[in-house]
C-alpha cells in the first residue's frame, strides 16, 4: 500500500475531534461568548460517552450521552457567565480545571477497561476502489457526520434567519435587545451547542481514536480547537481546513521520523504549533480580516438595561 494513504487516513482521524470542538466554539463565539472550557467539556464528554457505551454496548448512545454531559457542563458555564455575569475568561478556565478533576473522579473505576473500536463504514462499490476507497470511503461514521455538521453550521451562520440573529447578538447585543431579540436565550442555546459539540469531540477520543478512558486523555486538544477558531477567523470552512492542516502537520512529523529524515524531533513536535503561528501572522497582516470577522462583543457580558 502507498504509505501516503495511511498518513492521509491518520490525518483525518486526528482532525475529526478538533472539527467538532472548533465548530461548536465558532457558534459560541459568534454569539459573543468566549468559552475557554472546551478541554474540560471534552473530558467530561469522553468519560460519559465511554461509560454509556460500556454500559449499553451502543456507540450511538455513547455519543448522545457525551453530548448531554457536554451540555450539562455548558449550562453551568452559561448560568455563571450569562445570568450572574461572571468574567468569561476566568469562568472558562475554571470549567476546564473542574472538568479535568470531575472526569478523573467519575472515571476512576473505568480506567483500564477496554472497549471494541467503532467499525468503519463499508460502501459497496466505493470502499473497494483502490486508493480512492482507502482515502475517502474507509472511515467511521463520525468522520462523515463532522462534515455534515460543517455544512449545517455554514448554512446556519450565513443563510438562516436564526444565524443572522446569532451574529447580530455577537456584534451588538444592545441593538439586538432593542429590536426585541432575546440575547439571553440565543446565547444560552449557542453555549449549549458548543457544549454538545465538545462532548462529542471528547467521546470521539474515548470511543474511536483510542477506545479507552484514561485521565486527561484530551491532552490539550481543547486548546487547539480554541486556537483553530481564531485561526479560521470565525469562518467554519477555514476552521475545518485548519483542523486538517493541523492534523496533517502532526502526522507528517511522525512520518518524517519513521522515514529517518535527519530533523530534530523537538523541531518536528514544534511544527504544528509553529505552522499555526505562521498562518496567524499571515492572516493578521491584513488587520481588517480579524477586525471584520471577530464578533465585536466577544467576551463581554451583556446586561439588559431595561
Amino acid at each position, binding site marked *: 500500500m502507498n504509505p501516503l494513504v495511511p498518513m492521509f487516513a*491518520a490525518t483525518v482521524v486526528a482532525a475529526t475531534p478538533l472539527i467538532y470542538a472548533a465548530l461548536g466554539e465558532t457558534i459560541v463565539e459568534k454569539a459573543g461568548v468566549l468559552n475557554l472550557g472546551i478541554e474540560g467539556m471534552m473530558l467530561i464528554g469522553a468519560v460519559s460517552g465511554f461509560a454509556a457505551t460500556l454500559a449499553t454496548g451502543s456507540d450511538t448512545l455513547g455519543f448522545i450521552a457525551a453530548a448531554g454531559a457536554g451540555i450539562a457542563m455548558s449550562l453551568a458555564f452559561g448560568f455563571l457567565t450569562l445570568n450572574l455575569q461572571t468574567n468569561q475568561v476566568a469562568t472558562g478556565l475554571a470549567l476546564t480545571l473542574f472538568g479535568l478533576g470531575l472526569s478523573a473522579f467519575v472515571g476512576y473505576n473505568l480506567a483500564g477497561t477496554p472497549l471494541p473500536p467503532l467499525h468503519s463504514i463499508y460502501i459497496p462499490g466505493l470502499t473497494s476502489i483502490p486508493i480512492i476507497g482507502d482515502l475517502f470511503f474507509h472511515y467511521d461514521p463520525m468522520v462523515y457526520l463532522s462534515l455534515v455538521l460543517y455544512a449545517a453550521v455554514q448554512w446556519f451562520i450565513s443563510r438562516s434567519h436564526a444565524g443572522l440573529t446569532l451574529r447580530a447578538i455577537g456584534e451588538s447585543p444592545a441593538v439586538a435587545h432593542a429590536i426585541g431579540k432575546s440575547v439571553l436565550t440565543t446565547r444560552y442555546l449557542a453555549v449549549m451547542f458548543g457544549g454538545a459539540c465538545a462532548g462529542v469531540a471528547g467521546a470521539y477520543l474515548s470511543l474511536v481514536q*483510542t477506545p*479507552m478512558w484514561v485521565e486527561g486523555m484530551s*491532552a490539550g486538544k481543547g486548546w487547539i480547537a480554541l486556537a483553530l477558531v481564531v485561526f479560521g477567523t470565525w469562518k467554519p470552512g477555514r476552521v475545518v481546513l485548519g483542523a486538517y492542516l493541523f492534523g496533517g502537520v502532526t502526522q507528517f512529523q511522525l512520518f518524517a*521520523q*519513521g522515514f529517518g529524515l535527519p530533523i530534530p524531533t523537538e523541531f518536528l513536535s514544534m511544527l504544528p504549533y509553529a505552522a499555526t503561528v505562521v498562518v496567524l501572522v499571515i492572516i493578521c497582516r491584513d488587520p481588517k480580516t480579524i477586525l471584520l470577522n471577530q464578533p465585536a462583543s466577544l467576551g463581554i457580558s451583556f446586561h439588559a438595561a431595561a
Partner: protein
Amino acid sequence: MQLHEKISAVCFFVNSSNSNQKVSVMKSTNKWKYLSMSLAAGFIAASSATAFAEPFKVAFVYLGPVKDGGWTQMHDTARQKLEKALGDKIKTTYVENVPETADSERVFRQLAADGNKLIFATSFGYMEPLQKVGKQFPKVMFEHVNGFKTGPNIVVYEPRFEEGFYLIGTIAGQMTKTNTLGFIGSFPIPSVMRNIDSMTLGALAVNPKVTTKPIWVNTWYDPGKERQAAETLVAQGADNVAQNTDSPASIQVAQEKGTYAFSIDADMSSFGPKGQLTGTTEDWSGYYIAETKKAMDGTWTGNRHTRWGLKEGMVVMAPLNPVIPPAAVKVFEDTKAKLISGDLKPFVGPISDNTGVQKVAAGTALTDTDPAFNGVNWYVKGIDGSVPK
C-alpha cells in the same frame, strides 16, 4: 514520635489557636481555649494508650493516579502486597498525583512530619526535592526510584529494564515477517536509549536481518499521539512495535491491524489479546517487603544503589501470547534463563553504534557498575536514523 514530642506539639497547637483567636474572635477566646485544651487532653490520653503498639509507618508518593493501568498502579499493587505480608505491624499511606515540582517537597515533608519512617518516592523527578527533605529529616529513611543521587538516609532502587527489553527483542526478532521492528520512544534519555538498544540487540541475536525504526513522541503519555506513532510505524512496515510510553494505544493498533505490540509496566493484553505478544512489567513487592523489614529491624543503611532484574523478580515478563510458536518460546525461555543466571548480559561486546564506532569491546560487557552505562546516548547498529540531539 516520642510522647514528650507529642505533648509539645499539642501545646503548640493550643498556643497558636489561642493567638489566632485573639485577632479574630476575642469574645470567645476562653471558650475555644477550654475546648482545645480538652481536645488536647483527650489526644494525649488516646496516644499514650497506643504508644507501645504503634505500627511502623510507611508512605508512598505516586506521580500518577493509582488506577493509571501502568507505572503507578504497579507500585500500588506492591504496596498492597506489602500490607498483606506484614499485616498489623505496619501502616501504609500513599499520596497520588504528586507532580515533580516543589509540590512534592511539601508532600514529603508532610509525610515525614506525620511520623512515616520509610518513604518510597516513585518517580525520577522527585530527586532534588528528596535531597532537600532528606537533610531536614535525617531520621526518616527515603527510597527513590530510578535516580542517581543517594544520601546518608536516601537510597536508590531501579529495575534492570534492559533485561525485559532484550527479551522483547528475542520475541520480536522471531515473530517479525518484515524484519522491521518499531519503537515508540518518550524522550531520548539514557534509561530509554538502553531499552531501544537492548531490544535491538536481543532481536539481532535471533535474527541478524532485523532493523528497528524509532519514533520519538516527546511525551510520556498522550494516547492520541502514541496511537498515531504506532500507526505510522505499522504503515512503514514495522510489524512488531515496542514502546517506552505509558498508554495501551499501540496495543490497540496492533489488535486492529493484525500486527504485534509489547506492553510496558503492566500487562495490557486486555486492550489487545491478539496484539500483545508479551511485555516487560515490574513487581516491586519483593523489594518493598525486604526494605521495610530492614527498616524495622534497624539494618537499613543509606547510600545504596540497588538494581534488581529478572533474577530478583523485579522485572517480570507479561504472559506470552499463545500465537508464539513453541520453538520461539524455547529460545525466549533459554535466553531468560541465561539472563537470570548471569551467563548473558544484554550489552555484551562487541557492540558498535550505527555510525560504526565501537562502543563495547569484544569480550567485555557494559553493565550497571560501569559509569558509561548511565550515559548511553547512541543507537546500536541495526537502528535506523540518528539520535535526536
